């Protein structure tokens, strides 16, 4: 039974998109897509419960057995990603943005929902499929739809940043494609497990090293690994607020999974981290991301750009966990996927609330808003504390295991740097909080008319804020799962 509904995870949103296009009624589309996303979430949770503890569920598309046919295969790693993407999608879709992006006219809103659903189905497809070429297809589905979503941001620069995102994303996609091609040439198969079994990577084999290089660079662009992150701050700050929340919470996370899968499952930790010593590149880049991107965030005056740069820094924490290549550190990186999704998703939803009521999230426009919108501001404070990594929030859990993993590797200096970099988060979060609560509003920008955000916006933002505390104190379904996934990845499975 469960393997039958597995395929629905991707098929449901994929089919729901054309339904939206056909029905065209904006209100229907909104509720329909919410229902579809809720169903996907339910399936993902069922899958996660099923595979927790080492189970695997496999589905063969069209009944063609692998390696010839395409196999959808779900283990703890995939189920974790599916649950992450669908839960964030559910929260974001339940966020009532009063009709969608302002620049999209009423009669074309159904297209917005259709594209959003396609994006979700692409992301879920990447996480679920066991076929390399299929991954590329879903990667393009999700990327193309996210370019469109970003371009709907309303500001003219949204179109420009979407275009830049498209150029960068396409380069990344091509690199990925070339890498898959080389793998196919070397092994004669596209099934991931089959590739992993047949591939015998070695430093003398230029083909496999080149394939690895292409794949890593390609995915790194999509993941926005420093210094390939330039598309991200613009894309996140000009996209519609709901889209920023969704992309920040999910898109880069799926790319991270892809990177981990390539490194650990296909090429294997012994080759990548002992022969090739990829950590010699990955570790410095991660640390640079943590410091330079956080440093850049401090100097941003637009809250969205600030959060976007913070995202680049947080991706640095994740890749740092990857480069430890031990269970603790990798689990720390993986758990940070979810933890960061919760806090950054919540923060971008807060941004959406502020945009709706205040009209701008420039730092000067937010002066004194803490009193006018106490609940929204409190959610922002919780998300901010989590970014800093205060104990009792999700950020602390990630930091705890990342530092533990790094210490296990014996990289004491890196451990110190992780902790020091979280102080930069203190600076940029403190800057926003201080403006919200202590700065007097400017004479030219009266804020007397600003009221608390409506419940339909506030509730989803607070769900994520509450989750940031809840999962900071109970970690069985976050760290517990991430640990299992990390052990599975290190053993070369998916």
């Amino acid at each position: 039974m469960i393997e039958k509904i597995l395929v629905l995870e991707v098929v449901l949103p994929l089919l729901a998109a054309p339904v939206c296009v056909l029905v065209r009624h904006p209100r229907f589309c909104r509720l329909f897509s919410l229902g579809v996303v809720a169903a996907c979430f339910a399936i993902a949770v069922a899958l996660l419960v099923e595979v927790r503890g080492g189970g695997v569920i496999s589905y063969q598309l069209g009944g063609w057995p692998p390696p010839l046919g395409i196999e959808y295969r779900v283990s703890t790693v995939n189920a974790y990603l599916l649950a992450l993407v669908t839960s964030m999608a559910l929260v974001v879709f339940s966020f009532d943005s009063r009709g969608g992006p302002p620049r999209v006219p009423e009669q074309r809103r159904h297209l917005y929902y259709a594209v959003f659903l396609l994006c979700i189905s692409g992301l879920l497809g990447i996480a679920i499929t066991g076929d390399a070429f299929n991954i590329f297809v879903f990667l393009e589905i999700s990327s193309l739809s996210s370019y469109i979503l970003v371009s709907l941001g309303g500001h003219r620069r949204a179109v420009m940043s979407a275009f830049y995102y498209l150029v960068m994303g396409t380069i990344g996609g091509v690199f990925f494609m070339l890498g898959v091609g080389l793998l196919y040439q070397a092994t004669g198969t596209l099934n991931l497990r089959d590739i992993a079994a047949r591939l015998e990577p070695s430093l003398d084999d230029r083909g496999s090293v080149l394939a690895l290089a292409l794949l890593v660079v390609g995915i790194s662009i999509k993941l926005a690994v420093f210094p390939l992150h330039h598309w991200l701050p613009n894309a996140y700050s000009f996209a519609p607020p709901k889209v920023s929340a969704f992309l920040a919470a999910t898109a880069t996370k799926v790319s991270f999974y892809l990177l981990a899968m390539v490194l650990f499952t296909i090429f294997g930790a012994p080759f990548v981290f002992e022969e090739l010593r990829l950590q010699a590149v990955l570790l410095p880049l991660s640390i640079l991301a943590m410091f330079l991107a956080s440093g850049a965030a401090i100097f941003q005056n637009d809250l969205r750009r600030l959060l976007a740069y913070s995202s680049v820094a947080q991706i640095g924490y994740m890749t740092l966990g990857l480069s430890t290549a031990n269970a603790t550190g990798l689990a720390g990186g993986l758990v940070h996927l979810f933890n960061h999704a919760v806090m950054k998703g919540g923060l971008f939803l807060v941004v959406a609330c502020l945009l709706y009521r205040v009209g701008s999230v420039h730092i000067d426009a937010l002066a004194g808003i803490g009193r006018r919108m106490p609940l929204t501001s409190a959610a922002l404070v919780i998300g901010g504390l989590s970014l800093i990594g205060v104990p009792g929030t999700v950020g602390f859990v990630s930091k705890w295991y990342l530092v533990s993993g790094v210490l296990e590797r014996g990289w004491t200096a890196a451990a110190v740097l992780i902790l020091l970099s979280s102080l930069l988060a203190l600076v940029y979060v403190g800057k926003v909080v201080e403006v919200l609560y202590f700065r007097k509003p400017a004479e030219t920008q009266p804020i007397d008319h600003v009221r608390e955000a409506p419940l339909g916006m506030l509730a989803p933002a607070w769900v994520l804020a509450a989750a940031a505390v809840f999962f900071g104190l109970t970690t069985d379904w976050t760290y517990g799962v991430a640990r299992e996934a990390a052990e599975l990845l290190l053993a070369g499975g998916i």
Partner: protein
Amino acid sequence: MSAETTILVALLLPVLAAVSCLLLGGGLGRPNLRDIATPLIGACTFAAVWRLAGDVLAGGRPELVLFEVLPGVELAFQVEPLGLLYGLVASGLWIVTSIYAVGYMRGHHEQNQTRFFTFFALSIFAALGIAFASNLFTLFLFYEALTLLTFPLVTHHGTDEARRAGRIYLGILLFTSISFLLFAILVTWRLTGTIEFTPGGILGAETSSGMVTVLLLLYAFGAGKAALMPFHRWLPNAMVAPTPVSALLHAVAVVKAGVFAILKIVVYVFGLDLLAGSNASLSLMTIASFTMLMAAVIAIRQDNLKARLAYSTISQLAYIVLGAAMATATGVLAGGMQIAMHAAGKITLFFCAGAILVATHKKKVSELDGLGRTMPWTFAAFFLASLSIIGIPPLGGSWAKWYLMVGALETGFAWQAAFLGVLMLSSLLAVFYLMPVVVRGFFAASPSAGPSGSAGGDRKPIAEAPFLCVAPLVLTALLSLALFFVAGDLVTLLNF
């Protein structure tokens, strides 16, 4: 009521106080009811902590395990002697302070009183969480919570000065706790696989002497609330807060959280034997001695009364760190004792400073000439508390100093005499920074009396601060006197 429930009740009562503050002061608009509720709930909290005292004195260690946060890391509480002492001090003085705060906040016409009392109660919650923490994670959780919850109290006035002070406050406290304390905890976790507080310590005897020294210094500086130099600047800056905050939080709950953490870590993470066997403690003793003398010297030069008291606090806190660093049973006893004695004394001094501010709007020592004659109760209390801080019998502070000196002699170091000298010198310096206040108050001619000092018929009438301000400070002054006579119980309690 089982001991487990009692711990939970003691922890949750301050939260209840915060909620009732919010409801009564904010939603229902009944400030009088709000101001009655807080001391009442405070009394209940103290009673709950007091109930635990019996168990602990009988050798019991009441425990409360809430849930597992990370594998092997629980949110859990355990009441042991040091924690009990700190809990009693914090919750007991909270009652007095909440009464004093009503008089002060109303007498001084402060804004946002509901927010003030709410965060105040929540800070006590965090302090009790620190007191009862049974592992380093729980301690760290509440330690950070205390920093964040007291931030709105420091920036209460919302002025530029308050914001700047708030930035320094958060900056230094979070910087030290994240980069030193958390790092030390993670290293401990890596070395031992546990972060439970265990009698005798968790770091094995095989830990190298260099590692012990590094860890000890990381912990000591990481507990930035202990205000060891050079990470002390947050404390004088925090004095922009309303005086009740300076009194309870920045003389008792917050700063004691730092030194309490150090004491607890020395006893239950390192273990006295391990520390005594390494030369780690000598370095910490030196740092503590330096802080003690340096802060005292700076205190003498401060004209602002609250700033002078703040530097005095820095100096007095170093006594506790010194006691912990001795790594002997006597040192820990002296440190624990100083927590209680200094709390009673310093809170009185701050109460007096606040009372003077409310009654006369004077903040500087140089303006206090002759005030003792119009505010006799306040200045008498100030005098008594000063004696306790200096360490003169028959006041509580003298015992703490006595045991510290005994402890200094007991350590095997060749230059034990040097530390003895430091302690004596520091007491002497305390005379210099505290006594001028009393002398000016009682003996200097008041400026309005004119240059001729026309003494005689026109004695000034008594003009004390409101009753709700004066009564608590008299009470705490008497408390530091009473503590001299019950020190024996503390010796029984802190028997390591």
